[in-house]
């Protein structure tokens, strides 16, 4: 699997993502700076987490308007897989690659802890390493993860199987509608999620429940 990681100023989870991709795929991802105007030919493009542009205006809003995002949009339209984690998810929403918005956590607190996720659609390139309904552990660390979409959009997403991950009962850390933790676009080649699977891929992390997301993608691309 060839991958690329887009880096914006203010991200801080890029190294974790690069390490996870390298460990699972055996290949170091290409690093693309936000001012670059071309994306390499890859199977997977990732926007990691952090605080791009200091979360100014709205989380992900400024990064979403970077020139590289037009290239990303073209690749997504061609069917290249795109993964956005945490701030990366916020950026994909602000860029209109995924529907809805992420708002301030209902508690108003920054939440940094482990949650449990339910795999709600295991029939996608991102989730094929899991079984339908499987409950996995995953860390979260965010202030704005409270997913919102209008009821019409939510209904359509639920009906089309576009909810990839939900916070398992009783572990919703942010008040997101329908306990949504991660969503797909209609074509299911773009996934955005708040939790950090890249931070739980080996025993040294205290578990490897996040690894199957990357190894599942690897199987798909190989």
């Amino acid at each position, binding site marked *: 699997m060839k991958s690329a990681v887009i880096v914006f100023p203010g991200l801080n989870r890029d190294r974790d993502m690069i390490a996870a991709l390298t460990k699972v795929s055996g290949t170091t991802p290409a690093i693309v700076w936000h001012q670059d105007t071309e994306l390499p030919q890859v199977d997977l493009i990732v926007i990691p987490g952090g605080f791009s542009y200091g979360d100014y205006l709205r989380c992900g*809003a400024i990064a979403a308007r970077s020139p590289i995002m037009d290239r990303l949009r073209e690749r997504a339209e061609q069917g290249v897989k795109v993964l956005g984690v945490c701030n990366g998810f916020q950026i994909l*929403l602000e860029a209109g690659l995924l529907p809805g*918005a992420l708002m301030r956590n209902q508690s*108003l607190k920054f939440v940094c802890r482990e949650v449990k996720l339910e795999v709600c659609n295991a029939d996608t390139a991102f989730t094929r390493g899991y079984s339908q309904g499987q409950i996995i552990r995953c860390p979260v660390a965010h202030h704005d993860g409270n997913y919102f979409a209008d009821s019409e959009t939510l209904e359509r997403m639920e009906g089309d199987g576009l909810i990839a991950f939900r916070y398992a009962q009783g572990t919703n850390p942010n008040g997101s509608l329908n306990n949504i933790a991660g969503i797909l676009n209609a074509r299911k080649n773009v996934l955005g999620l708040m939790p950090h699977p890249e931070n739980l891929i080996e025993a040294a992390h205290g578990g490897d429940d996040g690894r199957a997301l990357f190894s599942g993608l690897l199987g798909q691309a190989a």
Partner: protein
Amino acid sequence: MKARVTVTLKAGVLDPQGQAIEGSLKGLGFPQVASVRQGKVFDIVVDGTDEESARSHLTSMCEKLLANTVIENYAIEIAN
């Protein structure tokens, strides 16, 4: 030309920050506060004197960046 853009959350969108401010105001002894919705204000100076063209540019700025129209409304005022 001076313009003021006000961005507010749409009705029906939960505003936990507004709720926290409302709680704090009540705690300060303002029981008459019925509800608070918070938002953002942008003061923008636009080159040129054509109000119609400025308004059209400002609308485009709101749609493209200043507001997330999934959850927010915007209003544009131009000072005379």
